[in-house]
């Protein structure tokens, strides 16, 4: 799992290195701030909340968020459907670049 012990921002910045050139690490940190409140500083999960760091490829991460937002795929989301409806595709891509596996 990436980022054990690294701060969210450090990961955002690491994400930048691998992300499309336009990704702004500060914006990534601001957008992913909503995620880390429950999923842990590095997306490591815990206390019953699933890990989101290093668990999916970028494409799968984005597809999962879109499925939550559009009410497809996972038939019975608990809170993520309500959460995903607040975010844009561009923000899903930033989250994916930040949390997803590199491949």
């Amino acid at each position, binding site marked *: 799992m990436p980022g054990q012990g690294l701060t969210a*921002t450090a990961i955002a910045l690491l994400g*930048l290195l691998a992300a499309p050139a336009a990704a702004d690490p500060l914006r990534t940190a*601001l957008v992913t701030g*909503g995620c880390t409140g429950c999923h842990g500083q590095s997306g490591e999960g815990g206390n019953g909340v699933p890990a989101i760091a290093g668990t999916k490829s970028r494409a799968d991460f984005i597809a999962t968020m879109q499925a939550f937002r559009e009410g497809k795929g996972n038939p*019975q989301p608990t809170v993520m459907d309500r959460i995903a409806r607040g975010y844009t595709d561009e923000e899903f891509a930033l989250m994916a670049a930040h949390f997803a596996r590199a491949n």
Partner: protein
Amino acid sequence: MTGPTLTRRAALAGTAGLAALAAPRVRAQTAARIVIVGGGFGGASAARFARDAFPDVEVTLVERARSFTTCPYGNLVLGGTRRIEQITFTYDALARRGVRVVHDDAVAVDPQARGVRLAGGTTVPYDRLIMSPGIDLRWGAIEGYTEAAAERMPHGWVPSLQPITVLERQLREMPDGGTFVMAIPDNPFRCPPGPYERISMVAQYFKRAKPRSKILALDSKGGFSKQPLFMEAWAELYPGMIEWVSASNDGKVMKVDPQALTLTTEFGQVHRAAVANVIPPQMAAKIARDAGLANQSGWCPVRARSFESAQVPGIHVIGDASIAAPMPKSGYVASTHARQAVAAAVAALRGQEPPDPVYFNTCYSHVGPDYGISIVGTYRADGDRFVEVPNSGGISPRNETMTPERRAEQRRLEALYADGWYESLTRQMFGLS
């Protein structure tokens, strides 16, 4: 309570190195100084984020108390499933991460000279000031409800003024068969679902330990956050125990008598309590009002992209003290105000515009064992207004929309996620992970 120092150092070094690559120096000569007043949900989150995201900036946190007991999960202390030590934190880990923590009372702000005067006599200079001092209670807004009255009729709403254990003790000492009476304020106030989570947790305790006791909730409003979910849960878990009285049914408490333990409502009904919990009307904390940040409402108007005060330039006001409706006054949302305000403050020092904000909130409430519910909201700036993203967020699904099995699972998971949220956010804001 703390992570291994080596890991932390490595993390800091990593952050600093990369950030130096990514961001131009804030200042060539001396480090820019961000000062934060208040080390609660907004202020501690701001300090943590500023330290991580901007290694070149000097971050000072001014907080009068040496430890912080959270409001969140205080209701679980009443319910008997948490102890106060489990919801109390220190600032040591933030200090070890490089935040300059000053334990003193901020008594005045000079926005011209850009300094915060402390009770100890020193002045802390700033380039940008972030204020997250929380709330004060409006003593006397309910006739008879003074600071002295709060000993007999606890509020349990501001842990630094009164630990939740005062109310806890009264509930434990209450004889079975008594009535617990609550007075609940009108909007806006700290934590819209908080009073109703409290009703639920007291009911959970009564059901177990004092089953003949009753709860009477006298409300100054016509409705409340997550109302249908709370009402369904109360009927199911605590049948016959809870009576909620809306403002239109004479729920508004106008006067209290702490000696007689009575509460008098708008149309003159007098209710006698075995234990009374009075949550009075509120306003931004004194230092914010004294600094000229509040308008006549008692709360502080701010700009929607930066949380900079609409009244005093160079000062950002975040958390409960700010006027940020439709966002609720919650700890989670205060942490997202914090990051945006820090980013906007640094941008201002660099002569740049604030980044595009996205503010996020989830308020979980525990209503019984393995029974949690939530309200979610995502917010953005539209010009100088805060707006909720259309068709997003909302409350947990109602009972009738789910099979019994799914219902039990939904409520169980939300109670679990609530615990996860608490753990994650508090560890983050106090620098523990």
